[in-house]
């Protein structure tokens, strides 16, 4: 039988605080992506939209998303290493 886990700290030092917010950002990223990817649907109120323009928009948004994800992944992988198996992800999580 495992010992009861110690209560999760309510306040964190600056470093821990930042990594929590990084996790928040990581969780928000797909939402932001969905928003960006659904945006072209709004543009077609009056007739079809220009394919090249939309194509460029979608690819730019996509690439932006990848860049942000790449930057975040580096930091989050570090956080994961530091925290070992203890999860901080449930805070505000599903």
């Amino acid at each position, binding site marked *: 039988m495992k010992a009861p886990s110690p209560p999760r700290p309510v306040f964190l030092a600056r470093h821990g605080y930042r990594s929590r917010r990084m996790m928040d950002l990581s969780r928000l990223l797909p939402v932001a992506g969905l928003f960006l990817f659904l945006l072209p649907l709004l543009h077609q109120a009056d007739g079809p939209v220009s*394919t090249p323009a939309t194509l460029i928009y979608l690819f730019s948004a996509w690439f932006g998303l990848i860049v942000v994800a790449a930057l975040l992944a580096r930091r989050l992988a570090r956080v994961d290493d530091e925290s070992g198996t203890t999860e901080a992800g449930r805070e505000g999580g599903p």
Partner: protein
Amino acid sequence: MIPFDILVAVCVSYVALLFIIAFMAERRASAGRVGWLRSPLVYTLSLSVYCTAWTFYGAVGYAARSGLEFLTIYLGPTLVLVGWWWALRKLVRIGKTQRITSIADLISSRYGKSNALGVIVTLLAVVGTTPYIALQLQSVTLSFAVFVRAGTDGWALPDVNATALWVAAGLALFTVLFGTRNLDANERHHGVVTAIAVEAVVKLVALVAVGIFVVWGVADGPRDMAIRISESPLAGTDFAAGRWVGMTFLSAAAIFTLPRMFQVLVVENADERHLATASWAFPLYLFLMSLFVMPIAVIGLATQPAGANPDLFVLTVPLSLGQEGLATLAFLGGFSSATSMVIVAAIALSTMVSNHIVMPLWLNWQNTGASMSGDVRKLVLRARRISIAGVLVLGYAYFRLTGGSEALASIGLISFTGVAQALPALLGGIFWRGATRRGAGAGLLIGLAVWLYTLFLPSFGAGSVMSAGLLSDGPWGVAWLRPQALFGVDGVDPLLHAVFWSIALNSFAFIGVSLWGVPGPMERLQGAQFVNVFDHSSDAQGWMQGAAEAEDLLIMAQRILGGTEAQALFQRAAVAQGKTGYLPDTTPAFLERLERELAGSVGAATAHAMVGQIVGRSSISVEDLMAMADETAQMMEYSSQLEAKSAELERTARQLREANEKLTELSVQKDAFLSQISHELRTPMTSIRAFSEILMGGEDLRIEDRRWYSSIIHDEGIRLTRLLDDLLDLSVLENGQVSLNLQPANLRDLIDRAVAATTEPKGDGAITIHRDRAAENIELVTDTDRLCQVFINLIVNARKYCTADAPELRIDARRQGDGVLLDFVDNGSGIPKRSQAIIFEKFARLSDRNAAGGAGLGLAICREIMGRLGGSIAYLPGQGGAAFRVQLPLRPPETSAPAGSQGEAPAQLNHA
């Protein structure tokens, strides 16, 4: 033109290369040099089994038919990967801790290791994947046909079906060779994964090469390309919002539920950190794969004849423009896309089939656990190999059945929708503890049924499986049951219609039934472990202490894990328990560990059943679960009690420390008191003795002298008496033996009395007293004599100690609530701050100036009296001179017993 034979030769040598790569990788891995075999790059590239021939050929066809919509197939996975922190991370962690072998195993294990669910998901996966495998075969034969057609300038096709058959057979061989080398599905298939990574590079390079050729070779750079797109039939995009959203959802769901994606994402994952890299690198891969799709489609539409199949533009565009080398590369790219998908899908499906269908059947047939005979390993591996062949045969049969007629994209989407039925049970399982086995089963079955009815069966075309009448009028003419217009939802795209209804009804059934029922103990245990996978670093045990024989377990484990490994496992466990030999105690922890080890090979449900057969009791009960939870709760309670106790102890210690300090102080005070009192008594005694000796010895004294001496003796006697009176008074007051003589009085009269009693007729050292007689007009009930005594004391003090040249005393009186405040303020120099605390102590005379007046008991007596009267007296700092504030109630409290002035406790201790 490339002759068909050369193409076949290229193909065969490519396959041979793959075999060699896979073989080398296996050799490297078995030599222990995994190195880059387990790098994030290889992991990311292996995820590219998502991009099948459907992507390679079909995306261009999709784009040529419906414009930008093809992007949704990549945007969905991008969102899932970018949001890895939500779900994929958890999925991978669960896969690792629970040693999950497939998606069927995950769902079966989560819902109480139920094999029924495993079977349902396996069937779903087989039915959903078969068309997809057929699709790959179709794409390979089609691409062969392109070259043949171009090469022979006619319709003298070699048998297309034969091509498909050969491809299927080759793939089966590869998969059997490299996919079933070891039984433990959790062990990496290094050969397969490495080969797939190489194929991922091939297909990316091929598609990008064709794209570059199209943009810079055919068109004149990106600018020209943009112009060409805007002049093409695809210039304007009319978004079908429903399909855009629906396809994005479907492709996102596919990442979770496609058996092959689960295989590479979770089962073949070597290190959780690789997921962080894949979260951006795989979207980047998809990005590059789709970057040139639109240009190829536009150029294809412009250069190819009107009836050309847009699914093959990737091949036909370079071929028709004389780029044979490029076309061959593109062909190889398509070939790799198809083969990698088939290989991984076959491995994933064969694991599911062998673990969830063959093994349970075999166990059932064996029935008695202890008398298991034969090598189970061989059996399982053979089952896997046969399953692989079976899966490919099924795919080939589907290919023959549909005649390879449909557009690639539509087959892919039908398949996606089928496997997406596992999504509610999967996500519900890892995020919601309330999800139950019955709920998952109901959701899966209803989703499967709706998918079959609304999408899969109609996809064969009207008149083949479903009659045209059924499609247009519904069964028995019931219009609202029409397969493509369920519940009267008409005019919707059939695919969207099917996705919507199947997922919606699936989720409703899943949630509804889950809410309704109570899950069994095993389900609850597993549910908690899955949902809280990040919290439960140590496992709750599913087994209670049983009387199982370790030897029986060893025999069984040897048959599944192999002799060496099983013995090593048992020996390690025995050593960990502090025993020697190969037979550890069958503790719950060991049973759990063993079961998990077995689950890696034969799946959670089968492993549980096998251990259960030997242990002989059906693992855990609700009572056990409750007891476990109780134990935890008790621990928490105990620890919080300890915390409270320690806080209390600390409080007590602090009180004790304070009391100790006070006692020490009092002891010092007592000593001081004793020495003071003896000093005070001794001084008058000395003079009395001296003068009485003179009187005794001298008869010749003059009468004046005699009178003078006796008057001194008399004065000293009076002083001594007064001192003793004061002491007695104080002692009586402190012991609470005094009885108050309460009577109504007017404050002004009392002060008048006090002033009159202290007025010295001679005017020597006179003090001017300022009063506000109107304000003093306050009626109160009190012991008038005692109160006067306090007033007199204060006035005498002021007269004695006020240092001003023209001493003045101000007496302020005012009502405050139920009491009276009286301030006695003089215009002297006041009392230094450090002395303010001790002036109410006994013998606390600050200086010896004018010492003759008293023994320093006055203020101490005042404090005691005020305490008895229910009021208090305190020094009031900051008034210019010495200021005392007397506070007393209009009526003393009923219980006039020890009314607490603060200095009371030490005062009483003094006399104790």
